[in-house]
Structures are given as structure tokens and as C-alpha cells.
């Protein structure tokens, strides 16, 4: 059981490494979007410091939405998805494997890059620490919830935009608790409450999202 | 009667709310009626088509 999970994760990581450009484009998108805001809002540090958590988090949200397109589309096109449906392993486990690989490839780079961007917004050390923690908890939840949207819109024309329309409302709690935790820490209120909520959402997503995504895949592949 | 429509100075907001609500509740059924007419017409045309063609 666990062996197939590893097989899927390993396979997807190898595939991602062989197509490195996909990974970098998402990271660049994240960096560019975060760097655009000061140009739009102005260079005053105190306003930037105020909007930093929200901007970094919204950019992370959009970047993970962008990355969802790749999650199932290629497997659907070359028939690998059909074979995954026909394996003797529960499909939700395979979906979890694919989402894990997808998160390692697209989510983790965002988490590593976030502190650098935080400095750009002159975020305090505490703020940066909590930013990384919340992104570490938040990005997997985004990938999991996003997987449901990606599975539902498989093979549809205009699927990319549709995924965002379906998934973004569902990711709002992650955004609220993620950005809220950083802001609470920076303003001294302490973000523990937010972080625990974010962890709770991640655990729920870990359990329910693969089941929903598997059901959606069965519907889409029909 | 005018005083009633004045709504104690909130005329715009009260009639704006009630007006739009009831307006939408009239538009929706009308849209449905035209949708129904369209599908019935299409079915009628298909029926004529089938009768004409030797199936």
C-alpha cells in the first residue's frame, strides 16, 4: 500500500525534474506578483509592512492555483490516469501521492522563497518565521483543495480559469488564518490560535480532499 | 400617499431594495417561459423532421 504511494511520488518527482522549467515558472510568477505590489502602492515601508502578509499569501494562493493545471492534465492526456484508476490500490491514496509530489515541486519552493520576499517588505524576524510556518501548513492544504478542482475540470476547455473559480472560495479560510497569523504575530497579539486553525484545516483536507478528488476523477475520466 | 412613498427619507433605499427583489422575481419566470417556448419549438421541429424522414 505505502509502496505504491512512494512509487507515485517518486515517478512524479522524476517527471518534474525532467521538466524543470514548469517548476521555475510558478516560482517566478510568485516572485513577480509579490514584487508588483510596491510598484502599485508605493515604497513607504510602513504601508508595505502592513500589507506584507496579505500580499505574500494571496500571491502564494494564485501561484498554487496556476500550478494545479499540471496536476492531472498530462496523465489524463497520455492515459496514465486511466491506469491509475484500474490499479488494485485505493485511488485516494494515489491522488494523495500525486498531490504530495505536486506540493514538493510547487509548494515547497514558495515556502523557501517567502522569507526573501518578506525581507523585501521589511517584515520583522518573528513575522518571517510565522510566515514560513503558515505557508508550510497552508500550501499543502491549497494543493489538496486544488486537486478537487483540478479533478473536476479535467479535460474541459478553459479548465485553467474554471479551476480558480471553483477552488478560490474554498481556500478562503486558509488565506484568512494564514495571513491572519502573520499579522497577529507582527502586531504582538500572537498567532498561535490562527496556526492551530490552519493545522486543523490541513488535517481535514488531508483526509477529505483525496476522497473527493478521487470521486471527481472517476466522474471526469468516464 | 406621497408621504408613504417618501419612506421617511429612505425612499431610494427601501424602494431600491424591494423594487429590485420583486423585479428579479418577475424576470426569472419570464426567462423560464422563453426557455420553455424555445425547447418546445425545437422538439416540434424535430418531430416534424422525424415524421418526414423515413426512419
Amino acid at each position, binding site marked *: 500500500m505505502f509502496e505504491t504511494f512512494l512509487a507515485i511520488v517518486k515517478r512524479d518527482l522524476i517527471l518534474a525534474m525532467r521538466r524543470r522549467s514548469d517548476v521555475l515558472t510558478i516560482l517566478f510568477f510568485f516572485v513577480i506578483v509579490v514584487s508588483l505590489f510596491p510598484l502599485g502602492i508605493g515604497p513607504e515601508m510602513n504601508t508595505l509592512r502592513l500589507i506584507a502578509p496579505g500580499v505574500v499569501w494571496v500571491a502564494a494562493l494564485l501561484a498554487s492555483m496556476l500550478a494545479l493545471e499540471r496536476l492531472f492534465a498530462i496523465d489524463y492526456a497520455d492515459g496514465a490516469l486511466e491506469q491509475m484508476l484500474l490499479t488494485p490500490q485505493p485511488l485516494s491514496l494515489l491522488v494523495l501521492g500525486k498531490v504530495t509530489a505536486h506540493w514538493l515541486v510547487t509548494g515547497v519552493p514558495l515556502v523557501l522563497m517567502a522569507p526573501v520576499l518578506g525581507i523585501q517588505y521589511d517584515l520583522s524576524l518573528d513575522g518571517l518565521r510565522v510566515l514560513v510556518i503558515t505557508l508550510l501548513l497552508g500550501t499543502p492544504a491549497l494543493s489538496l483543495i486544488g486537486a478537487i478542482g483540478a479533478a473536476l475540470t479535467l479535460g474541459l476547455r478553459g479548465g485553467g480559469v474554471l479551476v480558480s473559480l471553483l477552488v478560490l472560495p474554498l481556500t478562503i*479560510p486558509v488565506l484568512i488564518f494564514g495571513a491572519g497569523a502573520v499579522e497577529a504575530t507582527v502586531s504582538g497579539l500572537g498567532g498561535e490560535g490562527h496556526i492551530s486553525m490552519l493545522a486543523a484545516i490541513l488535517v481535514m483536507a488531508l483526509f477529505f480532499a483525496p476522497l473527493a478528488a478521487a470521486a471527481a476523477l472517476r466522474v471526469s475520466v468516464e | 400617499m406621497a408621504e408613504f412613498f417618501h419612506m421617511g427619507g*429612505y425612499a431610494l433605499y427601501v424602494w431600491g431594495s424591494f423594487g429590485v427583489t420583486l423585479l428579479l422575481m418577475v424576470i426569472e419566470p419570464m426567462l423560464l417561459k422563453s426557455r420553455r417556448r424555445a425547447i418546445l419549438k425545437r422538439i416540434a421541429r424535430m418531430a416534424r423532421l422525424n415524421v418526414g424522414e423515413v426512419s
Partner: protein
Amino acid sequence: MSSRIVNWFKFSSPATFYPLAGRLIPWFTAAAVITLGVGLYMSFFVAPTDYKQGEGYRIIFVHVGTAWMSMFIYVVMAAWAGLGLVFNTRVSAMMASALAPTGAMFTFVALWTGALWGKPMWGTWWVWDARLTSELILLFLYLGFIALQSAIDDPRRADRAGAILAIVGVVNIPIIYYSVQWWNTLHQGASVTVSGQSSMETVMLWTMLIMTFGFWFYAIAVVLARVRCIILERERDTTWVRELEGEVQ
């Protein structure tokens, strides 16, 4: 609604459900017109003027009713969608698709009336109040459902994909509402709440209930009419539809 669920197995085929819906629509339309008529009369002539908000508060009779309906319809939509998914009955799935536009309409109206009520009371058209924000997110959920169903050509896949989205959505609604509530109290404190239930005189409460029932009857009538259209569109090349097309109505 509940009467039909008792023997719904018999009515789960479109051919038997279509005439039944046809017979029910006039009744619900009449009920809607009467209840709304009474509700409107009470809203303007029976309910007293509010000491604080004057006449402006009468918007609450429409705002709260439509807000309740928008939430209620989403839950009913998810329930029908779930039934359709589990029992593979096509009429339940069609009911879910038929409910969505009406639900979206009520959500929009709730937002519109919320804004019009906020302007005189708090001076701004849009207030980031917990309930209004959740209402806005609910509108996005509706639009997502409708967009997904219209993007899929095959009706069966559209039903089942929509069902999964509706179920995921209905599970998320309490989480979204709770997180927005938390977000709202964190930033603004509890000072601005559109939804603060000021001491409600019983007659106001009754007016609101009657208006809500009116919307409810209206919703059933419209949804049944739309589900009949959907049945005709999907079953257009079946024999029973072709014989039916001579119908005058």
C-alpha cells in the same frame, strides 16, 4: 418539498416527475403570490417604524428573508445532488441544477439589499461584515457550480461533477462562515454588525417569516418550472417527450 420525498422513488423517473411538477407549479405560484402579498402589506403597514432606523429598517424584511433562502437553497441543492450521486437518479441531479440559478439570484438580492441597507445606516455601500462577506463567498460558490455544469457537455458528467462540488461546498460553508467571523472580529471588533438582532418585536418577526415563506413558495414554483425545462431539454428525443409536444401550455 417533504411530501414528494416520501414516495419519490416512483417519481424519480423524468417521465413521471414531469407531469407531477406541472400540476404542482400553479399551487406553489398561488401560495407565493398570496404569502408575498400578505408579507408586503405587513412590511409596510403593520410593522411599526423603528425608533432608531426609521422607515429604512423595512429593508430587513427582504434582506434577511433572501439571505436565509440563499443559504437554505444551497443546502437543498447539495442534498439533491448527493441523492443523485448516491442513487444515480437523474431527476435529483436535475433538481440540483435547477436550484442553482434561483439560489444565486437570492444571494445577489441579499447582497444588493444588504448594501442598500448599509448605505443609510453606516454611510457606505459595502460593509465587510461577517454575514455579508460570507454571502459574497456563497455567491462565488453558486457561480462556480453553474460555471462547472455549463462547461461540461455530457449531462451525466455535469450532474456528477456538480454534485461533488456542491457537497464539498456545503461542507466548507460552516468553515468559511466561522473563519470570516474570526477574521471580522479580529480586525474590526464587533462594532459593525448588519446582522445584530435588535430587540425584534413579534410583529416584525412574523413579517419576516411570512416574507421568507413567500420566497420559499416562489423558489419551489420557479425551480419546478426550470426542472421541467431541463427534463425537456435532456429527454428531447425520447418518445414520451415527442408525444407530449402537442401540449398547449
